[in-house]
């Protein structure tokens, strides 16, 4: 058993945990966390699986993963802004409008617009 095997197994476990998180999460931020975990697992596999060159990881996958990390943080930042906006508009942070009320906890029954509706509701102009 070598280090590579250990890290492949770890990546698989993390991927599975991410899948579990994605399936069970009601809150959008939890889904984002789960997706980020899965991405990390993929990145780990990308580095561990290709052959090492002179005892170091192949530079090409390293560059790919570095690119992937920056894309991941960009996407996450954008998704968080979208989540905050959606939360303002609908008052809860679940994706499905017809979500199981128990999952929304305290916001049950608050079906219409969110608690801090702004002046420029809708897509209209200022």
């Amino acid at each position: 058993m070598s280090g590579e095997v250990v890290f492949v197994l770890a990546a698989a476990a993390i991927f599975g945990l991410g899948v579990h998180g994605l399936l069970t999460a009601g809150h959008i931020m939890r889904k984002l966390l789960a997706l980020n975990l899965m991405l990390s697992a993929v990145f780990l596999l990308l580095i561990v699986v290709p052959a090492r060159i002179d005892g170091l990881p192949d530079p090409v996958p390293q560059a790919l993963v570095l690119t992937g990390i920056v894309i991941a943080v960009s996407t996450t930042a954008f998704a968080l802004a979208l989540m905050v906006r959606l939360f303002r508009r609908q008052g809860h942070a679940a994706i499905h409008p017809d979500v199981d009320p128990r999952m929304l906890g305290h916001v049950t029954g608050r079906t219409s617009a969110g608690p801090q509706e702004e002046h420029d509701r809708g897509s209209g102009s200022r």
Partner: protein
Amino acid sequence: MNPAVLLVGLVFIPLVAALVAVILPVRFRRPVALLGALAWPLLLVPLSIAVARDQTLTLVFGGWTPPLGIGWRLDALGLVLLWVHALAGIAALPGAWHRFGPKVVAAAPFWPLWLILSTGVNAALLAADLFNLYVSLELTTLAAVALIATDDGIAALTAAMRYLLLGVLGSLMYVLGVGLVYAQTGSLAMDQADAAAIRDVALVLMLTGLMVKAAIFPLHVWLPHAYGNAPGPVAAIMSAVVGKVALVALWRIWFQTAADPPDLLADLLGLVGAVAIVYGALAAYMQPRLKMVIAWSSISQFGFLMLLLPLASQTAFQGAGFHLLAHGLAKAAMFLAAANIVTVLGSDSIRHLPGLDKRMPLEAFTLALGGVTLIGLPPSGGFTGKWMLLTAAWEQQGWFWLVLIALSGLMSAAYVFRILALTCFHPARRAVHELHARPPKITSLAALLLALLAVIIGLYPHPALELLGRGLPGGAS
């Protein structure tokens, strides 16, 4: 001059325009975006001549030949989709211009995003490198999601979020597949990356990832809400190209990276397409809103395009490629017409449709023409595409596919005629209440021209068919 250099313009004209638009104050963004969005399609004329002559154009960045560097490749299929992109984009401009004027809140980010979407689509169409395709598709997805969110309704924001999360899931599966291919073959170039043992797994991973992005059933769940709730011009450009870019990438990987794709998988994916055709059409028939009908119809039509994988012949490719062209134009036209209907009526509920042909005849005509293409009635472009696919199924004695293609026309007819019957022949043809100011006539005319174009290409199909007749995306026939 090597015509391949012109390819740079396809990506960098919209990109540089986007940068300029970001730097300039808000009031200058719209004209800059207009210039950028009108400039890059001009390159398609010389590029079409070059592709017609040389079959494919290739460009290698920095002179570092793959697998060291990144290559671009423009073939007939890419060219067809570039034309769809250009035409749909130009037709969507009047509507976008009207809706996102400088006084609108979302206009400041809208115009740069519009240009970035074009950049991403064109880069993804040209990509001949597996990882470059990933970054380009990410750019496309992110811009598309943000453009959907410019609507700011709960439905649009929810749709955007769902699209984003599923898109990330799809791309991470795709990247995992790419990583496995690289590990085994040491190359990321699409035509060098073939290998043996782990390939099928990697292929399945990459295809699944792309199927999410292309909204192929059963990974389609993001599409109807996204298209149905996005602002009209955005829905038009997205239905015309954004999903199809992923589909074209899927075809390319299928025929190029997997030089000898397994038959079982081909039949399975064809079957998935078959279910999508039926399911999408049924769902489209049930929808209470016009835009949702058009959106669900895309699921059905995308399923249709998956039939290329099991048929896999020259004729089938011509048919599928042509269908891509006709469907893209018709869909964009229908979404643009629907957008005008929403603007005027304040809603696109089909309850409001009766009597529309009197008050908004151009829109009603556009919907009818688009519908004709979707069904595949002669002489529309949709007919040519379906006919070629039928011929391909006949040649290979694929009776199941034959019946399916014939059936799909009937099913499209069901949801299209439901809309048209409601619009023109409903007994209770109430007067349409105009709630809002009518958008400028040019927006209606642009949609109508696009729909007409989708019919006209059916009358003159030869240039496109000849281009597509050069070969499957992999070059093999």
